[in-house]
């Protein structure tokens, strides 16, 4: 069924080629870190996806939780089983809309500050958020970089009191990706 939807979307895109330009990646890097005096924890995922529609400024990001790798196996285990419950909530996603689209020239090399607003879903909890980042147009590709902070408690991620001093109240997230034009 998903395949059929995808084929139809692709056909739709084909019909509108020239007007609407979409950009895409399947190699987005999402890195988060928790730093406390007790310990530093880092998780990295290299297979995030993003589709960005330059005509409308709509973007969709998605990442699989089980794809986050940690230096320590125990941290990876706790992250999946206790905190993010990845078997119940297998992915996280952001559906956003660029709010200053008129300031971005997708057909001209340059670096732009981009503002977005949308819905971020982590651990099955959907929240309205505003996200900012930079978007660099270079040789027809888009280099996207965004730094933001999330609070585990906002997404109903409960940290046991025994380790609450080991895990930061605010988790730093860095998203970086190079989006290429979607061939149609």
């Amino acid at each position, binding site marked *: 069924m*998903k*395949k059929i939807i*995808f*084929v139809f979307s*692709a056909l739709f895109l084909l019909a509108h080629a020239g007007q609407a330009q979409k950009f895409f990646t*399947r*190699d987005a890097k999402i890195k988060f870190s928790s730093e406390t005096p007790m310990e530093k924890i880092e998780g990295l995922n*290299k*297979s*995030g*996806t993003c589709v960005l529609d330059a005509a409308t400024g709509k973007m969709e990001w*998605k*990442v*699989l*939780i*089980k*794809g986050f*790798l940690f230096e*320590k*196996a*125990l941290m*990876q285990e706790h992250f999946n089983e206790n905190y993010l419950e990845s*078997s119940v909530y*297998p*992915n996280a996603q952001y559906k956003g809309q660029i709010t200053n689209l008129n300031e971005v020239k997708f057909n001209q090399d340059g670096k732009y500050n981009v503002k977005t607003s949308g819905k971020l879903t982590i651990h099955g909890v959907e929240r309205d958020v505003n996200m900012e980042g930079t978007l660099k147009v270079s040789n027809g590709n888009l280099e996207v970089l965004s730094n933001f902070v999330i609070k585990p408690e906002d997404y109903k991620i409960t940290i046991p009191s025994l380790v609450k001093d080991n895990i930061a109240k605010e988790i730093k997230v860095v998203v970086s990706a190079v989006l290429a034009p979607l061939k149609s």
Partner: protein
Amino acid sequence: MKRRTILYVLLAAVLIGAVVGYQLWNKPHQDLAAAKTDVAVDATALYNEYNTDENAANAKYLDKVVAITGKVKEASKDPDGSVKVSLDAGSEMGVVACELSPFAKHTRTDFQSGEQVTFKGKCTGLNLDVVFVECVEAKQ
């Protein structure tokens, strides 16, 4: 004398506890090269299963040691040295993407498109592609 014995026992218990705790803390990532394969599957078959019924496929493959066989469509190397090999899944829309494990030693990190390979790895689910992490090449 008796008090001293109790002290030694307590000391030994604390020491053992510390060692066990330290080992657990530094537990290595699963050695997938040595691990027993739970399920073996062809890349195209797996991709089709995922696109037919994602939940059923997740139940079958997540958190398992999966041996995945397919034809290399493309291999890419990051500036940081990490390697991702895309296996052809008989679709224009997606592939079976295998990230080589950063925790394991690899006999090779260069893969030619068109060659047949088998990786052992952990399935993370469907995100356009079916994505595997911690992959190592299985010995033929």
